[in-house]
């Protein structure tokens, strides 16, 4: 093989370049979304009633699909009530139901969405809750 050392050196530089984000982050504290569900509205409820319309795990995983289905049910089929797995019914509305409890949009919605780099367009039209804390700059 000709130019063995040049090739090996070149390969090492290449591997170093490709893997540098991983190597540089070794030992560093991992950036995690710091989601808060302790909005004043939720905290004012008695402890046993502090739960969402469906189990936490389900909401965490499926809330985006659920909101899409709610949208189609309300706008296109004229169905406005959601009957949850316990038989309780709720008015299907992001603006009038969800954020009545989750009024801390910047800590509840944005925190994770920023981390996952997803940009849902809900708030282009729906009116976001007024928060007391200082608003962070938009991504």
């Amino acid at each position: 093989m000709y130019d063995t050392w040049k090739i090996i050196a070149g390969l090492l530089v290449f591997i170093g370049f490709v893997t540098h984000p991983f190597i540089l982050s070794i030992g560093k504290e991992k950036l995690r979304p710091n989601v808060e569900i302790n909005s004043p509205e939720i905290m004012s409820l008695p402890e046993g009633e502090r739960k969402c319309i469906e189990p936490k795990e389900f909401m965490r995983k499926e809330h985006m699909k659920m909101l899409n289905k709610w949208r189609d049910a309300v706008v296109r089929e004229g169905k406005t009530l959601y009957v949850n797995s316990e038989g309780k019914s709720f008015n299907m509305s992001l603006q009038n139901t969800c954020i009545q409890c989750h009024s801390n949009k910047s800590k509840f919605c944005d925190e994770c969405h920023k981390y996952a780099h997803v940009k849902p367009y809900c708030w282009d039209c729906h009116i976001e809750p007024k928060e007391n804390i200082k608003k962070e700059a938009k991504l």
Partner: protein
Amino acid sequence: MSNIDRRDFLKILGVGAIVGIWGGSFFEIVNKRELEASIGSYKKAPEALQAKKWAMVIDIKKLNKKIINDCIEICHSIHNVPTIANPKEEIKWIWEEKFKNVFPEIKDQYLSYELMEMPVLVLCNHCDNPPCVRVCPTKATFKRKDGIVMMDMHRCIGCRFCMAGCPYGARSFNWRDPRQYIKNENKEFPFRMKGVVEKCTFCYERLARGLPPACVEVSQGAIVFGDIENPESAVRKILSTNLAIRRKPKLGTNPSVYYLL
């Protein structure tokens, strides 16, 4: 495997292709059904007003400037409709128009000047044969089972075919972000965004809560709303005893908004 013949090879290939193409989607379908069954269901609110076909009767004789302005004001304020001064960019769901412009085909040289200049309330006609729905490429505007021609703002791409299709000019396009043109927002209703078309929706959100459209409520009896397919309804009773006219009937759009003279 070395003595596999051509026939067996083709069989294996065929079965492999079928499993490869449909196997994955088969499991997806099975899994999805389980997931859908595990969450809640959707239904209409029990208090919701329902009809086979909603219709509106506007009595022009009972209208006056105050009633007209009240109707426009309540509609535009509860639906977060922006007030934009430039007529090329204005947004309107319900507005005032002179009689001669609402019914341009009624031309008689001896008709009174007062009638021709009379103010008339106009809004989306919620046609039975809506041209806007026919031209919408994304089905963002569609006809509900109860006759309401609805807008799904999530789907509107702002192509404005519907505006070209509507013979009544009932649709407005958001040339700019409407938020800054709304003084007192209604927290219970969304805004629209720049680049979508909007219009009257017969107050679908109020019907779902058991309330009549807002303009009907403030019209002091000048506007009547009801199920035109129900012979006992107020609109049917008015239509069966009065001569009512509709806008541009020759076009065959079959409007659900009737006018009494």
